[in-house]
């Protein structure tokens, strides 16, 4: 037992150092370094403004942009960290053939690297929201819970995918297509109220229920509840997202412990 705890602390430190390395190398690749973490959301906002306010002439002005920004940034976090975590095992096989390490370490590094980046962007977002009139309110205390739920969902999705990609690289293409579809179904560009309450007669449940079966839809809606509409999150949606996260995580753990000693014996050629 004491060995197990010591090992766990060691793994935690490995993840921490490598996450630091990931952030540093990402910042050093560009001339502007960490400034990009702030510039990126600014550029996204500008694009939203041009497309939705100037071209489509959506009403709502700044409100509309905040709504879109919350959706986009939160979705980006989900997509980029799941994708990075997914490549975690495959891209580090050469390191794993030298050390005895659990296979979940490298996916976690990818996830945490993009999560730190997201947190910077998220802070900028909150400042921007405050400027637009969405000042912090008491319900902001729920934000850590929503963020934690989403992180659980990300880790849960990434782990089984990481094992899968190490065996079948084709999954990368499949998953990025699914993500593109999911982005449009998660309410990044619209709110849940936009989804009709009724469905054609041959569909058993109404469209809103299908909409909220997607955990990201409920999470994005929860962020908007808190930041824009000064309400608590949609707890049912959080519960669903956490369940998805846990279920995938357990599947991922079983998969990774099953392939632990086998995965490295594969040769590509």
């Amino acid at each position, binding site marked *: 037992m004491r*060995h197990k705890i*010591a090992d766990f*602390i*060691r793994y935690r*430190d*490995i993840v921490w*150092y*490598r996450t*630091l*390395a990931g952030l*540093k*190398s990402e910042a*050093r690749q560009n001339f502007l370094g960490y400034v990009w973490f702030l510039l990126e959301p600014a550029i996204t906002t500008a694009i939203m403004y041009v497309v939705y306010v100037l071209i489509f002439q959506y009403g709502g002005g700044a409100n509309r942009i905040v709504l879109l920004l919350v959706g986009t940034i939160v979705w980006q976090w989900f997509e980029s960290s799941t994708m990075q975590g997914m490549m975690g095992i495959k891209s580090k096989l*050469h*390191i*794993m*053939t*030298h*050390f*005895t*390490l659990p296979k979940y370490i490298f996916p976690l590094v990818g996830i945490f690297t993009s999560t730190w980046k997201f947190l910077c962007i998220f802070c900028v977002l909150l400042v921007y929201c405050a400027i637009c009139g969405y000042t912090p309110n008491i319900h902001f205390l729920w934000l850590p819970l929503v963020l934690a739920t989403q992180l659980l969902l990300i880790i849960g999705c990434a782990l089984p995918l990481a094992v899968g990609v190490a*065996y*079948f*690289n084709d999954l990368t293409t499949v998953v990025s297509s699914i993500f593109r579809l999911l982005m449009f179904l998660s309410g990044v560009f619209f709110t849940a109220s936009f989804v009709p309450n009724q469905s054609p007669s041959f569909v058993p449940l109404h469209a809103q229920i299908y909409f909220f079966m997607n955990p990201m839809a409920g999470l994005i809606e929860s962020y908007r509840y808190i930041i824009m509409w000064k309400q608590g999150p949609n707890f049912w949606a959080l519960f669903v997202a956490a369940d998805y996260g846990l279920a995938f995580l357990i599947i991922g753990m079983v998969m990774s412990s099953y392939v*632990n*000693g*086998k995965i*490295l*014996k*594969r*040769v*590509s*050629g």
Partner: protein
Amino acid sequence: MLMEKSSNASVAKPAQPLISVRNVALCYRYQKSIFARHKAKIWALHDVSFNLFEGEKLGIIGRNGSGKSTLMKILAKIFETDAGKVTYSRPLHVQLLSLGVGFEGSLSGRENAVLNGLLLGKNRRHMLSRLEKIKDFSELGEFFDMPVSTYSSGMGARLGFAVAMETEPEVLLIDEVLGVGDARFATKSYNALQEKFSGNRTVVLISHDAATIQKMCTRAVWIEKGRTIMEGDVKTVAAAYLKAINADDPNAVRELRPD
């Protein structure tokens, strides 16, 4: 193939082996693809058996492609065997000596020393307390606080070696890494390794070079095409190995005796 066991082993051995390897086999599998034409499996080890005793220096000798490196990764618990059994007498910290693998270019030498130590099974506190020693041994000077991406390959190897010397596994597995950096550092690293060999630590050294094995080890195992040919006293095994190589290819001797 015949399994010869030399009976005149000169070292007195305790009865219970630290690690016992019995009829171990391992195969690599190709990545599956609907357009793949090659065989799905490659057997690297067919039938390998030997014992490793506490405190001994065991040499594993064999030609290129005989399965030595694969065997090391089984001992380090990185690979799972496909047949046979490896028994550890107690929970052991077995570590492969890999120099500079897992370095992160964007981190400084100091940070990489800690990270590499963590990968090699030591905790953060242990590594932090050894940083000055690592800095001295690696002779990196002010480069120690610069990103590793600015290092020459020799500097990287020196840092890797210095870190490896400060991680103290119960069983050290060495895969022909003697001779790091320039001539002077090579001597220094050789001496540091000698020190590890002279102590009480259990060491497994693999090499295709009979001379190296004979110089560093007390007992040896000879492996050929994934099978154990012989296990026993280093002199006997090395002699038999050389004889077999000579019979196959007279030119091979020169390669085996660099001096």
